[in-house]
């Protein structure tokens, strides 16, 4: 759909190379189930049990329960030893928030883009709903990762997120993976080192 697929695949691959057990939960309309990808990333693809929708919002909000189901299965299979969830953009923030509240797994909100930029100056109930979910992500996350300083400033401007909560990690930097891992460590520590 956009750049997120490539970004998350690259990040997951690099994390596995560093010896970190990594699972990826994502969507596919029909190729559902668990696979061990060639890059070593345990991948679970889920589809939406509700086939008919009236908009992106209802589609996203119902898909989240399948994401929660898949993530919970990983959590219990791993003897509850999941340290952290990294959620990319707004779509699966509801699942990340539930996993945090129910199971105590902290999460990082990695911002690729914001509704304010995607639908500039649009403040319809539809846009406001997505913005409210993005805000929830910034509020509930242990740390927020932005890909540029400009994006960090935008997150602060739009959602009034404390500056110290946002970490800028440039995907083009040579030390990108180490930089992301540092944020993961900080988030894990601040959540009590589960």
């Amino acid at each position, binding site marked *: 759909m956009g750049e997120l697929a490539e970004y998350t695949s690259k990040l997951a691959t690099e994390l596995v190379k560093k010896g970190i057990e990594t699972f990826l939960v994502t969507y596919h309309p029909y190729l559902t189930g668990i696979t061990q990808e060639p890059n070593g990333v345990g991948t679970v693809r889920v589809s939406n049990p509700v086939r008919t929708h009236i908009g992106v919002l209802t589609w996203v909000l119902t898909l989240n*329960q399948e994401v929660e189901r898949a993530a919970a299965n990983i959590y219990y299979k791993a003897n509850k030893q999941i340290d952290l969830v990294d959620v990319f953009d707004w779509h699966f923030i509801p699942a990340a928030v*539930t996993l945090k509240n*129910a199971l105590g797994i902290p999460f990082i909100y990695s911002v690729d883009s914001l509704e304010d930029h995607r639908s500039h100056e649009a403040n319809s109930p*539809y846009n406001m709903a997505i913005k*409210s979910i993005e805000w929830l992500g910034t509020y509930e996350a242990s740390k927020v990762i932005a890909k540029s300083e400009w994006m960090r400033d935008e997150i602060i401007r739009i959602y009034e997120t404390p500056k110290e909560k946002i970490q800028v990690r440039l995907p083009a930097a040579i030390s990108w993976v180490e930089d992301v891992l540092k944020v993961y460590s900080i988030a894990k520590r601040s959540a009590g080192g589960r």
Partner: protein
Amino acid sequence: MKKPLNVMFLTWEYPPRVIGGISPHVFYLSKSLAKNDVKVHVVTCDFPGAPAHETIDGVEVYRVDSYKNPAPDFATWVYLMNLNMQKEAAAIAGKLDRKVDVFHAHDWLVATAGIGLKHVFRKPLLVTMHSTEIGRRDGIHTSTERMIAETEAWLTYEAWKVICCSNYMMSHVKWAFGLPDDKLVMVPNGVNVRVYDKARQQDLKDFRTTFALPDEKLVLFVGRLVYEKGAHVLINAIPKILEKVNAKFVIVGSGYMKEQLSTIVRSMGLEHKVLFTGFVEEESLIKLQCCADVAVVPSLFEPFGIVALEAMAAKSPVVVSDTGGLSEIVEHDVTGAKVYANNVESMAWGITKVLLDEKYRNNLRENAYKRIQERYDWEKIAQQTKQIYEGVLGEYSKSFWA
């Protein structure tokens, strides 16, 4: 000693938030379960002036942010509300000293919250299907309706057991979602007879005059003003009834058909005979039900028919459509009068018969009141529900989730 059960109810309405029949159902069921040594945590939508957390007769009630931004439409609001409900319920369940044993969802309006909680906590999910979209709409006609119907199907698929309030509803749900017989269980709705007994002890003469003149019989309709509740059938029957009986028709409730119904009444020149009250708070509604000379439930689709049960508890004779759960609650000529559904002639006949024949009317009152005490007591319903929880937990204890 056996540990008491710990159950979490998910419901979009709980008093003082009253929209339909789910609110009183959950209110009385949770209180009666508490009396039967079941700890119930109700997670519901917030309501102006109602506290975020309170304990009512042993029931823990949590009112959560129901998403107050303008939503694109009602169905999308429901899913947004569920996001908040699930988040809050997860936090509440996570902090309890004793883990939740069972999540119990009431209708599709809390479907996604219930399904998500089931999986993250790995606990059984039960659902009470109070109604279905295909029944409410008399078919599926739009994408929104299909989406809701598919959400209902998903919820019943995920549930360990699906509770229905009548045999009619059980067969309807089985047909609508293709469910196996052993997944379905029937537990009737209940009514709290004591509140009606108490109201009847008062002198209601003055109260009645605010709705009808002393020489007018009082015909009462209570329900949402939506197609499936059939208020239009009653209104169309009024001229025929007035040919034989002097009566006032009191229509309690609101809904999208309000304007349309008012227009019909105006066009028939019957504004002086029909009173639209809108929403009536509970105390007055109970008194009104006790004053009614006949309570009419003209539904076209009715999974249960709690309004008929309330009227019977209030000793008001009932005239109901012979459909759905109403057919099971009312025994014709014994506990009420049944008329053909969506049939104006039949409706007029039933109401007229009850209003003109005092002996018949009094027989219906007494028989119905007795029937209510025998079959629809909340105490018995709570015991049945507790047995279902225990049965599910027995099966669950043998699963790999336990």
